[in-house]
């Protein structure tokens, strides 16, 4: 079995894994978006390389050529690229808002602040309940 002819899929897999690794291993939100972009291009490569026919030319009809590559993946990916930038920009604006709210774009910082807020909320809730329950005597001891 000749498996060298599958090299295009391996390139795609490697790119996909690079993107995937960046998304799960880095805490910086901008880096995560860059990772998502790389992941996305790997999918583009998967489609486009599947549409390629050896010895064929670009699918613009001309009398001098008989063999063309498959136009369908091109159409799908062309629109996907533009949709990709639109969604990336949505992600970027979310990052901007997160930075304005938390003062950081590192996931760990955001998590610390969230836990802190949560604890504060719970403490507050507990504090207001204290006056009504008989639990307070236990806690004072």
């Amino acid at each position, binding site marked *: 079995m*000749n*498996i060298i*002819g*599958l090299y295009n899929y391996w390139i795609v*897999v490697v790119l996909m*894994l690079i993107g*995937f*690794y960046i998304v*799960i*291993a*880095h*805490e*910086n939100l*901008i880096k995560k*978006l*860059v990772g998502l*972009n*790389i992941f996305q*291009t790997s999918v*583009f*490569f998967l489609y*486009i390389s*599947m*549409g*390629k*026919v*050896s010895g*064929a*030319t*670009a*699918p613009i*009809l001309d009398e001098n050529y008989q*063999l*063309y*590559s*498959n*136009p*369908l993946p*091109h*159409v799908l*990916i*062309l*629109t996907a*690229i*533009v*949709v990709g*930038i*639109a*969604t*990336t*920009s*949505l992600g*970027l*604006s*979310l990052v*901007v*808002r997160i930075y304005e709210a938390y003062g*950081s*774009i590192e996931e*760990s910082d955001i998590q610390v602040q969230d836990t802190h807020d949560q604890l504060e909320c719970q403490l507050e809730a507990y504090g207001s309940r204290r006056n009504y329950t008989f639990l307070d005597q236990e806690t004072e001891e």
Partner: protein
Amino acid sequence: MHDLFAVVMLSGIYSLLSASLFLDLDAVDVAFTEASVGAGISTLLFLATLKLVPRHEKESRYKPTLALAVTIATGALLIYGTLDMPHFGDGNAPVHQHVAPRYLNDSMDEIGIPNVVTSVLASYRGYDTLGETLVIFTAGIGVMSLLLVSQRTKDQARKKVPADMQQQVILRVVAKMMIPLILIFALYVQFHGDYSPGGGFQAGVIFAAGIILYTMLFGLSLTQKVFNSKIVELFTALGVLLYGGVGVACLILGGNFLDYDVLRHDAVHGQHLGILLVELGVGITVASVMITLFFKFTWRTVKHKYNQ
């Protein structure tokens, strides 16, 4: 690498390289789009965001072992999965058997334009493209509502928003010569997309790039005199409306939704007109969404500047 500026620049270069790879794989339209979107607008928006958030990444507290293990396991499974795939460049692969031969053999008689990608995009798969245009429109609305500009910021900025690069004389002179050419090239790509690589998506992005270049060099307030953000925001909807309107016009004339055959006296002319209008709709929406995105990020920068 902890400097995000370098990360963003590298990803721009990566996009440009992948565009040339797409060219090598016969996907000229895709290469065109990737070069203008990935290397151009995407890098620009990342840089605009970096202006609003810290430029350096913090040291991570976790060891990457677990992530690496997950990645490698996934990779092994994926590689195992590829063993059943058809070989690269194989003309008999299943993907080439289904609808592609029909597009390649019949589109010249049915649609009458040489660029098969355009005829598939705008006519055979017109529903798809309408949906995708709507996604872009929706993403544009999302950014608009996330990065709202308050009236106060606008009033403060009305005095004058100087561009950061106002002092760069060489850039300004060169840009003044280049911007008209960029805009004309965008229109060429828009209307010549039936015969050569190009179409509404690429043209919209290139047009927006020209306007964005102007904004960067001459300031937001000057650009807003011509491209008032309210009007640009209206245009985002107008493009989608034009696209949908063509579909409805087909319905009224007795055809199916987005079936352009009925638009003119004979089918091929109808297809030509339909594709032209639909691509125009796509171009208008894409261009105005991209311009709006850049405006919103710039306004945010202005806001941060005044709040400090």
